[in-house]
């Protein structure tokens, strides 16, 4: 029973080509007189871009996953790492990378290319250690930025400065190790590009709220990966824009990823890369995995959207904006989304240009401009303000917003980056808001995001991968399970390892999926 039409993504081959070129360019960088750096997928990739257009990188996590995908080579790498004395329970990506380096074999053919320097950040327990080993083994210098500044909601000036200062120092270090003069304009371009690329990926993920989902998670892995390779690159930015337009078109035409979709789930953390067939197996039950916090929030950048009503003839709005000093600004308009954007850009009112607007905490609709103006004046009185604050505190205000959507980029906010310092501040702030950073501080932050995905993407259940290969992203996952269950969503768990297939039991995992599908009331539609 096929319910929905389906078709292959038109930009699929382009995604493959970008990935292939990335690894090829890294290997051949020296033939072109270029620079090679190694570091994590989460590192501040936009910054070395200031060294020139011939700077090529290899990001460790996707490389480790590429190794995992080739089962025979993966075991060879893991055994080489173990033989060198590294314990089997360490990060599987790291072991795959180390093994490949020790064997001097590149997953894409030839010898393992040696980087000129290492540019890394440190959020998870393995990040800095991974590249300390590489730095000592390859005898190349390393710079590591510490980003452990606490949850984004608690970011303040001194915390931001802590990261920005390290990045300033990093640029001086880059000039020294490369012998090149740093170009601030290239940095600014890369920062703009990264913000746009990562917000556009979130836009693609939002489109998957549609029933039927235009994308399935297995396909998304091949697309989000480009952001893990070079999220600051205009190549990725342009590809994500093309992808977004194509997915929008799929939504418009009702094209489904899984033609018999009747059940929607999400996963979590990296999958066991050598066994992506798990996702194809789900399709036998008419089940689509629409993504995960991992696929959405590792590269995608998000925020609460105001979800404002579209302007309509004969509709006028009175609204209250909460500013960053907790002050309340009250105004009226016939076009709430446009007015909100103007407030964000600082062009709507003196008050909101000097006091950063946070959100629209209340709005009301009126049929005439006069009624709206009258109400605005009433609310601006002492009595009106008191009433409004009481309503907001009691949760009775008609709050706008609440759904998760792409983070507004600096360019959308009209921010013009002119200096190195401004660029570093923008990219530091942008990076620290990354959803997948937040659970390092408190699993409840991750649970809240997962539950909102489950609700907003209309899920029937959740499949959690207890991923032994990644201490970082598996941290607190058992807590997440309880929170998701409490929110009313059935959860199944399976154990495995993203990069070390020796710890994955395929038969039992498939049986577990059978059981989970039975508990959701689903039988196999095909065998």
């Amino acid at each position, binding site marked *: 029973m096929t319910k929905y039409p389906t078709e292959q993504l038109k930009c699929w081959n382009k995604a493959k080509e970008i990935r292939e070129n990335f690894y090829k360019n890294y290997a051949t960088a020296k033939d072109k007189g270029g620079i090679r750096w190694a570091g994590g997928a989460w590192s501040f990739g936009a910054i070395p871009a200031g060294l020139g257009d011939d700077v090529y990188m290899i990001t460790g996590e996707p490389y480790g996953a590429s190794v995992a995908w080739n089962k025979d080579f993966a075991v060879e790498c893991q055994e080489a790492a173990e033989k060198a004395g590294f314990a089997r329970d360490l990060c599987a990506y790291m072991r795959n990378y180390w093994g490949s380096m020790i064997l001097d074999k590149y997953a894409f053919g030839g010898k393992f290319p040696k980087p000129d320097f290492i540019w890394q950040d440190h959020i998870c327990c393995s990040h800095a250690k991974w590249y300390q080993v590489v730095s000592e083994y390859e005898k190349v210098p390393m710079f590591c930025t510490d980003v452990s500044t606490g949850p984004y909601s608690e970011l303040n000036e001194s915390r931001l400065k802590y990261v920005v200062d390290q990045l300033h120092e990093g640029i001086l270090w880059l000039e020294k190790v490369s012998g090149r003069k740093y170009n601030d304009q290239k940095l600014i371009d890369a920062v703009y590009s990264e913000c746009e690329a990562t917000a556009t990926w979130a836009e693609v993920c939002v489109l998957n709220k549609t029933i039927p989902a235009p994308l399935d998670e297995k396909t998304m892995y091949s697309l989000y990966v480009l952001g893990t390779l070079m999220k600051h690159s205009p190549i990725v930015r342009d590809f994500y824009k093309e992808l977004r337009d194509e997915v929008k078109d799929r939504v418009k035409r009702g094209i489904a990823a899984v033609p018999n979709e009747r059940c929607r789930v999400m996963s979590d953390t990296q999958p066991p890369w050598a066994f992506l067939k798990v996702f194809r197996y789900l399709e036998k039950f008419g089940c689509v995995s629409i993504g995960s916090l991992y696929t959405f929030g590792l590269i995608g950048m998000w925020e609460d959207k105001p979800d404002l009503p579209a302007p309509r003839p004969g509709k006028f709005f009175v609204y209250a904006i909460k500013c960053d000093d907790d002050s309340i600004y009250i105004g009226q308009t016939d076009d709430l989304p446009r007015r909100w954007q103007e407030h964000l850009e600082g062009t709507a009112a003196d008050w909101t240009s000097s006091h950063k607007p946070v959100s629209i905490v209340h709005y009301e609709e009126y049929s005439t401009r006069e009624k709206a103006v009258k109400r605005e004046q009433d609310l601006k009185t002492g009595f009106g303000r008191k009433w409004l604050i009481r309503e907001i505190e009691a949760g009775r205000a008609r709050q706008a917003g609440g759904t998760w959507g792409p983070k507004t980029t600096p360019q959308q906010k009209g921010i013009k980056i002119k200096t190195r310092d401004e660029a570093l501040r923008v990219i530091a702030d942008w990076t620290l808001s990354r959803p997948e950073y937040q659970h390092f501080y408190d699993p409840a932050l991750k649970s809240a995001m997962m539950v909102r995905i489950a609700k907003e993407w209309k899920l029937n259940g959740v499949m959690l991968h207890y991923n032994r290969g990644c201490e970082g992203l598996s941290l607190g996952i058992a807590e997440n399970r309880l929170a998701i*269950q409490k929110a009313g969503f*059935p959860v199944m768990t399976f*154990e495995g390892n993203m990069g070390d297939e020796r710890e994955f*039991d395929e038969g*039992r995992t498939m*049986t577990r999926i059978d*059981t989970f599908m*039975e508990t959701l009331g689903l039988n196999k539609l095909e065998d």
Partner: protein
Amino acid sequence: MITAGVDMGAKTIKIVLFKDGKIIGKNIILGGFDQRAAAEKAFHELLTQTKRTRNEIEHISVTGMGRKEIYLHPPISADHEVTEVTADARGTLYLHPSARTIIDVGAEEGRGIKCDANGKVVDFAVNEKCAAGAGSFTEAMGRALEVKVEDLGDLSLKSTNAVAMNAQCAVFAESEVVSLIHAKTAKQDIARAIHDAIANRIVSMARRIGVEKDVVLIGGISKNKGFVDSLKRILEIDNLLIPAEAEYVGAIGAAIIASENR
């Protein structure tokens, strides 16, 4: 309507015939190397015992690790397959409608199942790539102690000293048992330590899904009094329900599901 449920377990095969809401026959056999042949033999025996023919059986549901062996495969040709968790829940609720938590310990797998009043599975946990939480663990330990597995239960009930066994893994636990033997630890104390170790693993799995009364223990290991004693102690419950047909519950569940599969 007569239906059959077959549980192709890792060690034994259980078959139940079901007619108009009642069990009319059951049989159990060791699976051995050729599970399909063993199932066919047991099925034939059961038909002879109950004076029935294959044609009289309208639907056959199969569960258990080896279910692919007879699913759509003649002569048994089971026409429906179901997972162990769903079959266990249905079978247990048939025998004990008050059951909300089901603990099933078979030869190779331990399972914790939480269900609602309709037998719908709300949550479940299954042991991972490890046999330490399953029946075969006690058999291996019995061999190390040179005690028949059926005598291990009574022996452990005689224990007066709690000896800790730290190993989580069946392989390491065996070497720990050997060390205890060499340290002249009383056999009954080692037997209890073995049951405590497996019960600890099972309980931690059951707690993951939340233990709600009534708790029912099913699976072959429920015949082991020593394990039952350890499980009750560690779960801190007095009333652990064990159906007389504990080994057949999966097959009963499958037979019931077959009767609904019109």
